[in-house]
Each structure stands twice: as C-alpha cells, then as structure tokens.
C-alpha cells in the first residue's frame, strides 16, 4: 500500500559499476522526481518528469540517466559509479508540477554506498 516505493533500499557496489534504482507511485500523480541527499542532509533535486516528459534536468553528471516508461514509474540508472555518488537517493511525486505549488510525497530512499 506504499504510496511511493523505491527499490532497492540499500545498494553497496564497487566503483565503476553500473546500477539502477526503481521507483513506482500508486497515487495517480503526474509528476515524479529524483532527489539526492548527501551526508550533510542537503536535499538536491536531480530530475523531474511530468507525464513521462523530462521537465527538470539539473546539473548532474551525464552518468546519471532517468527513464520514465509511464507516469507511475521513474527509474534512475547510474553508469561508472564513483565514490562521490554515495548518498541517499529519494524518489518523490506530486499531483502536478512545481508550478502548481503542490507538495511532494517521498519514497523511503535508497542508500547507495560506492566502495
């Protein structure tokens, strides 16, 4: 019954590997997001999709590629993982885009550790 679910919860991997994080929401929301939270707890937006269309693409290394097969799913693929990619990645959704001033529902996060 989880509104925004992401998998896996924990991911430990070696430098140079490629990994994916999956996110699904069952709220019927139109917009989904990926946020990165670093060790200092700072929440930084990475990407946003509205109805499968990319609407926010912040300055993020192009090793990070989001994919939205439908409006209920937003996955994050990371190539050639680096130590600095270690963080907690949160998926979130909202009923509409930021322009409508709607709040976010966050998933429980994926703690990525690159060794």
């Amino acid at each position, binding site marked *: 019954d989880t509104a925004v679910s992401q998998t896996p919860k924990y991911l430990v991997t070696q430098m140079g590997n490629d990994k994916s994080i999956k996110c699904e929401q069952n709220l019927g929301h139109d917009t989904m997001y990926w946020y990165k939270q670093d060790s200092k707890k700072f929440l930084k937006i990475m990407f946003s999709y509205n109805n499968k269309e990319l609407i926010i693409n912040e300055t993020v290394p192009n090793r990070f590629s989001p994919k939205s097969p439908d409006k209920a799913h937003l996955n994050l693929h990371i190539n050639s993982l680096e130590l600095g990619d270690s963080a907690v990645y949160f998926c979130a959704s909202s009923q509409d885009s*930021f*322009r409508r001033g709607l709040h976010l529902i966050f998933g429980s996060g994926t703690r990525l550790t690159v060794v």
Partner: protein
Amino acid sequence: GQQVMQIPQYQHVQEGEDFTTYCNSSTTLSNIQWYKQRPGGHPVFLIQLVKSGEVKKQKRLTFQFGEAKKNSSLHITATQTTDVGTYFCAGQGYSTLTFGKGTMLLVSP
C-alpha cells in the same frame, strides 16, 4: 538562482523546552512548505503556507509566513522526544522548489 537559508543548523533541547527554526529566501516565494525527516527516514510533508502573514497551527507546531513572503518560521512548544528529526523548509519559486539545508532537532528526556 533562488536560495533558501535555514537556521540554526542544529539544536539540542531538553524535553519541554521550546524550539524554533527560521527560513529565509533570497527571492519572494509563491508558497513555503515544511517537511520533517526522522532519523533514518524520508522527508514527510507537514504544511504549506501561501498567504502573506499566514499563521497555521498543528497541535504544538506553529508555522508562520512573513509579510514579504520571503521568510518563514516553525515553532514547537514544549518539545517531546517524538519531535526529534530534521526539519526542512522548501520555498516555491516560479518553477522550482528549493529546500533549505534543514535544522536537526535533538530532544533529551
């Protein structure tokens, strides 16, 4: 670009004491949102303020939005150990939602 500053970064109080965190934006906001993140958890939406000078209460929590719509505060009266966590403000600009760096609240029994 839009910047949202939040202070203090960290506060440790005794149970029963009051707590306040402040949020300031470099630009006028259309609304401000507050989220709470428990240790090991994810941010959870608490409230949204839209009108200039708006004040909203949720039990022991009082949220204010400044007259100029550039600052906001969250005040907790008589903290409890369940209030522990990091409180984030998030300022809504034209097309972006910018999070402050959060205030971590520790409450000792």
